[in-house]
Each structure stands twice: as structure tokens, then as C-alpha cells.
């Protein structure tokens, strides 16, 4: 019986038993993939607003999908920004390099030469196009699946491998798990194992740049799953409030380890739409379309440079491989799903485009692939000569006590002594 002022005919008005919705992916192992919910737009269909458009006047873009290349590789529509061929070729090369690098490092892990590896197969356009669309000193705060940034910004391959092997070449002195690079000279921030922490840090960096009257902007990346962390909300709030010059990328590769994007809320609204809630402009972009990623990044960068503030970009893609070397995706998703991904493969698509344009050929491509495979293999040999994990070819173990603070305090000094290093 109600005790107070509320309606008294409770029994009558009372609802029947409540129940929750538990999202589940369209296809589990053995089932047919289903792409009916993807919310696609046709290539060229989505409008390209002027960069000074008010966020309120472009909310539709969060629910569309910016695509430039049509099925034949022809660039169409307003987001076709006539990117110089030189840049596209660099893009292709760096995407292939990324894939080859991933492939070799993955195998090295499988051969017991290191503890862990993470590939970005199928997502290469996202980091490579961004690296080319940004200025080289714009600051990047990546997650762990943007290796294309380092390669495109020419972080030395040998050093990258050194980090993977935790050997004497590793500038991080064996302290970090593989793939958690740090590349200050390339303006790329140190990777964290803790998801999403970099997101509001990027906003802070961008704020600092603007507070200092600098010209450099920042860009950051998180996965679809990672958007559920509080840091995501901090970043969007701060970016919106202060109009920080930062690009907030969400890499929606459909999966977060075994959880499909719906577990992070991706079935209720596209991740790009999160930006709308804060009054941020939000673009939803085909992440496997190099031209689209480049154009969207450029648009957002120009906006930031013009003191118009931050942009949220959802990059719609597919994690073609397992989450990491510790994962077995066949346990939780249909193996068909990736193979039939309707937005294709970013390398294949850019290749088709360049060939169609007549500026690149299958033959040149094969030659480049071979060149890059040889480059990576050769470098790998050199890297492995400096040691692989577990061989004891590392920085001196005494370095383990350094960099806790700028200067070790008595504890690190004494403990190092006790340890005998």
C-alpha cells in the first residue's frame, strides 16, 4: 500500500514484470554474419559542411557514414578533397609496411621471441591517413592499435622491433610490454596499458598548446569498447567547454576483445553521436576508406587550427584478427564476419583507386610489397641479433631502478644495491 501522496490504485496501474535487454552480436561462431544494422551511406552521399559550421547544424553527420571511394575505387562526393597522389602513394606504402610489420612481429611472438603482440590488420588506413593529414609535429595520443602512426612518421623500424623484443635496442629499457611504444621525437605519446587514459590527456595537451599560443594541435584515439570509461567523458567535456584544439578519434572496429560494440552501447546510437551530447561536431567515417579518413582528419584539423575547437570522429572499421596474441576470436564470433566485411580492406581499396587512376600498377605494388617484406625481414634479423625476450640481452637490470623519479630516492638506491645490480 502506498504510504504517501502518490496514486492509490497502484495495483491497477502497476506494470508487469520488468526485464532488461542484453545486447548480443548478430552472429556467433557458426552463424551467418548480418550487416543489416551497419547504418551505411552511399559513397559520396554525405555532405561536407564548411569548417565553421555550428555543431548544432551538422548533427546528421553522426548518423551518416562518410565515404569517398565507390566500389570501383572512384572518388566521389564532397569529401573527395583531391589529395595529392604523392600522399596517397605514401599512404599505400605505409599501410603495407604496417601490415608486413604486424605479420612479422606476430610470428615472432608465436615463435616465443616475445611475450605479446597486437595487430591492426584491416585498420591500417586509420592511423596512416591521420599521420599524413596532420602536421608532423601535431601531437598524437594513440591507443595500442595505431602502429601506422609510428611507421608513417618514420620512427625507426629497428627501434620499434627493439621495443617488441625488450632487447638492448629498446629505448624503453625493457620496462613496457610489447607494442607500448613511446616516441617523443615523432610527437607520439607513451602508450598506457590502461584504456582511455590518453583521451583527456590529449585534451590537456591541446589546451596547453592553445594556452601557450602555440600552433600545434593534438589527436587521440580510443577503441569502441574503451568509450565506456570515465576518461572518455572527461575528454569530451573538457574539449567542449574550452574549445580545445584536439581531434577525438573513436576506432569502432566492432569488437572489444570478445564483446561486440553493442556492449559499449553501439546498438543504441553510433559512437559518433556521443559528441552531439556535448555540442561537439561529430563525423562518422568509413575507416577502411583511406581518402575518407584523410579528408575527415583534415577537416577536423582545420577546424581546430581555426580555433573552432574539437571534433569527434568515429572511424568505422573491422578488427580483422584476434584482439591480441592472447586471444582466439573463433570462440566468440563468426569467422565469416570479417571476410565478408562490406567495407572491404583498406589496402585493397586504396590500391584499386590508384590503379584506376593510372598512377600505380599491380606490378609496382608487388615490387613494393617485396621491398617492404625484405626491409622488415632484414631489420628483424638485425633486431633479433640484439636479443629477444628471455635471452637476457637487455638494458642493464640496474636501469630498472631509474626513472621512477627524476632522481632515485634512497629507496631505489638501496634496493638496487641489495639486488646487486
Amino acid at each position, binding site marked *: 500500500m502506498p504510504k504517501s501522496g502518490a496514486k492509490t490504485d497502484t495495483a491497477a496501474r502497476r506494470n508487469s514484470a520488468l526485464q532488461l535487454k*542484453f545486447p*548480443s552480436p548478430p552472429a556467433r561462431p557458426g552463424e551467418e554474419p548480418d550487416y543489416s544494422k551497419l547504418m551505411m551511406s552511399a559513397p559520396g552521399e554525405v555532405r561536407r559542411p564548411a569548417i565553421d559550421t555550428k555543431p548544432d547544424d551538422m548533427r546528421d553527420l553522426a548518423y551518416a557514414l562518410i565515404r569517398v571511394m565507390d566500389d570501383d575505387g572512384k572518388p566521389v562526393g564532397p569529401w573527395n578533397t583531391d589529395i595529392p597522389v604523392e600522399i596517397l602513394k605514401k599512404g599505400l606504402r605505409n599501410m603495407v609496411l604496417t601490415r608486413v610489420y604486424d605479420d612479422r612481429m606476430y610470428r615472432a611472438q608465436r615463435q616465443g621471441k616475445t611475450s605479446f603482440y597486437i595487430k591492426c590488420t584491416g585498420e591500417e588506413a586509420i592511423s596512416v591517413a591521420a599521420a599524413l593529414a596532420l602536421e608532423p609535429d601535431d601531437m598524437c595520443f594513440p591507443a595500442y592499435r595505431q602502429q601506422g602512426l609510428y611507421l608513417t612518421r618514420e620512427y625507426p623500424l629497428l627501434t620499434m622491433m627493439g621495443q617488441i623484443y625488450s632487447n638492448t635496442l629498446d629505448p624503453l629499457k625493457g620496462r613496457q*610490454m610489447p607494442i607500448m611504444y613511446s616516441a617523443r621525437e615523432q610527437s607520439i605519446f607513451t602508450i598506457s596499458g590502461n584504456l582511455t587514459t590518453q583521451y583527456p590527456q590529449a585534451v590537456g595537451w591541446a589546451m596547453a598548446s592553445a594556452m601557450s599560443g602555440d600552433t600545434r594541435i593534438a589527436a587521440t584515439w580510443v577503441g569502441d569498447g*574503451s568509450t*565506456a*570509461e570515465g576518461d572518455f567523458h572527461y575528454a569530451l567535456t573538457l574539449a567542449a567547454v574550452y574549445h580545445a584544439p584536439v581531434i577525438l578519434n573513436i576506432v569502432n572496429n566492432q569488437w572489444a576483445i570478445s564483446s561486440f560494440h553493442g556492449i559499449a552501447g553501439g546498438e543504441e546510437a553510433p559512437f559518433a553521436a556521443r559528441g552531439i551530447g556535448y555540442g561537439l561536431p561529430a563525423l562518422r567515417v568509413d575507416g577502411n576508406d583511406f581518402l575518407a579518413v584523410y579528408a575527415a582528419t583534415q577537416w577536423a584539423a582545420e577546424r581546430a587550427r581555426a580555433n573552432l575547437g574539437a571534433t569527434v570522429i568515429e572511424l568505422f572499421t573491422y578488427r580483422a584478427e584476434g584482439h591480441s596474441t592472447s586471444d582466439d576470436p573463433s570462440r566468440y564470433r563468426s569467422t565469416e564476419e570479417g571476410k565478408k566485411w562490406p567495407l572491404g580492406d583498406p589496402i585493397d581499396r586504396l590500391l584499386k583507386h590508384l590503379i584506376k587512376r593510372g598512377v600505380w600498377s599491380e606490378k609496382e605494388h608487388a615490387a613494393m610489397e617485396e621491398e617492404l617484406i625484405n626491409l622488415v625481414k632484414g631489420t628483424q634479423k638485425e633486431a633479433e641479433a640484439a636479443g629477444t625476450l628471455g635471452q637476457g640481452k637487455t638494458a642493464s637490470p640496474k636501469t*630498472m631502478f631509474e626513472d621512477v623519479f627524476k632522481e632515485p630516492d634512497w629507496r631505489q638506491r638501496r634496493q638496487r644495491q641489495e639486488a646487486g645490480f
Partner: protein
Amino acid sequence: MPKMNMVQAINSAMATMMEKDPKVVVFGEDVGYFGGVFRATEHLQAKFGVNRCFDAPITEGGIVAAAIGMGAYGLRPVVEVQFADYIYPAMDQLVSEAARLRYRSAGEYYAPMVVRSPYGGGIYGGQTHSQSPESLFTHVVGLKTVIPSTPYDAKGLLIASIEDDDPVIFLEPKRLYTGPFSGHSDEGVKAWASFPASEVPEGYYSIPLGKAAIVRPGQAVTVICYGTMVHVSMAAVQETGIDAEVIDLRSLVPLDIDTIVESVRKTGRCVVVHEATRTSGYGAELSALIQEHCFYHLEAPIERVTGYDTPYPHAFEWQYFPGPKRVAEALRRAVGA
């Protein structure tokens, strides 16, 4: 009796309690369909339905908060934080909420919940997959902190934790999931099956929180440890031949102060071992308590063998890890050998 490794024992504890009490629910990142990245929740969704075991978004703070709300409703949520290193986003909900509900509402509301999380090193996880944050929770009044060292204990303690009406942080030594570990990283992995503690009853049983286990009685020195370090300490004791009394705390809060005090008063010497960084680790509290309670019985300084005051470095895992050699040295110092 069935043989179980520690993951299976933990799984069995949850299954047993879900069977016994419809109020027990399990959720967390990847725990539903997939059964958890360490497989601790395998089959639970299939067995009990998605309403009882489900995947959560990557939001440790939200997971713990939701569990608090569910606990206040009357359920008994058991949530997984994928690695203890990722528990910090939930810190405010744990400290300010789970731990305080009962006190601030004078008992009207409380959060009967368990936060399970794999902790500790030994799997080349680097600084963000190896941490031992237990000491932080022991400083938070209102939280209980439990750490098993065997499959048998893991099941019994987890069941007791689920039945407990206070919030429990249940830290699982991930290095022990599949077998005990002496700390000699060069020795091959031994499976649990060849150890008696892998004999785990299928059904319900519980081990009360706050009762330590004397895993080896002895006269010369008391070793206080928990989790992975129980096995490392035992190895060191065996290797030194010192007649140590080895105490596995099992529950850090509530602490079995009586067993500790009795032992140290008897041996007059004490070595405290943990994997967490040294400064303000739980070893500090143990050392302080022991000298408060046993000052006039102590014949040598209480030794602490701990992780160094640095993050856990990937390539130097075995240099960092407080292995049997370091424990042995401390034992020798403690007995004056």
C-alpha cells in the same frame, strides 16, 4: 574428489553459489558469452542464463557502481575486474561508496558484493598486468580483502566472500591459476593436479574469512605471506632447511591477528613476504602490528621481502619478483644464520 586448478575452483565457487542462491549474479568485461579472459566464468552464462551472467562495458567504475546498486537492491553481485591494475577507475565507488554505505546509513543500506580480480606478476604482463594493489584496500575501512593460495582455499574463500554481507575485494594470484609456483622462473610449470590442494569438493563448502592457515608449523622463525608468495616462501624454507612456521593469511582484512601473534611470540623472529611494492605495502602494517604485539619476544628485526619501489618491469620480471632467493636471505638474516 574432482581435481581442479585455481581457475576451475573459482568457477566452481560461482557456479555453486549461483545454484544455491538466485540472488548471486556475475558480470564484468568479457565474462559472459566468452567466459572471461582467464576463463573463470566459463559456462556460467550457458548454465544460468544471460540474466545471471553477462558482459559489461569497459567501465570498471560503472561495474562496481552497478554492483553496489544491485547489492542495495538485495542481490549478491560478483563482478570481475579483468586485471587488478584496472581497478583504479573504480576506486571512488569502492572507497566512498561500497565501503561506506553501511556506516553512513547506520545499517539501512549495505553492499554485499565481491570484486574478483587477478593480481600479481609472473606472466610477463609488464607494469599494467602485474600489480598487487591489496595494501590500498586494507587502508579503506569497510572493505574486506581476501587472497587465496590454492584451489581448495580459492573456492572456500570465494564462497564465504559471496555469502558475506560486506564488500569483499577478492584478489586472485594469476600466476597460480594453473599451478603452484615456487618462484624459480626457470623451472617448468607444474599443474595443480599433482598437489592435494587441487582436490576440491564439487559442491558447497566455505572457509571463514579472517582465519589464517599455518601451512607449515615450525619453531625458528615465522613467515607471513599470502597468494603466490606462500609457494615462494615454502620453497625458500625448504631450500634453506630452516624450521620456519609459514602462515598463509588468506584474508588480509579481517586479519587473524591471534595466529600471527601466537606464532611470533613462539619463534621470536619474523619475515613478511609480499609481491607488492614495499613502501606502505601490507607488510608495513603487519610489521607494525607484530612489533606492537610481540616487541618483548622479538629477537631480531622483522624482515620484509617485497617488490621493489619501482613499477613492475616487463623484461626484468624475474629480477623484480621477490623470489625464493630473496626470501631465503631474509630467513637467514632473521635466524642469524
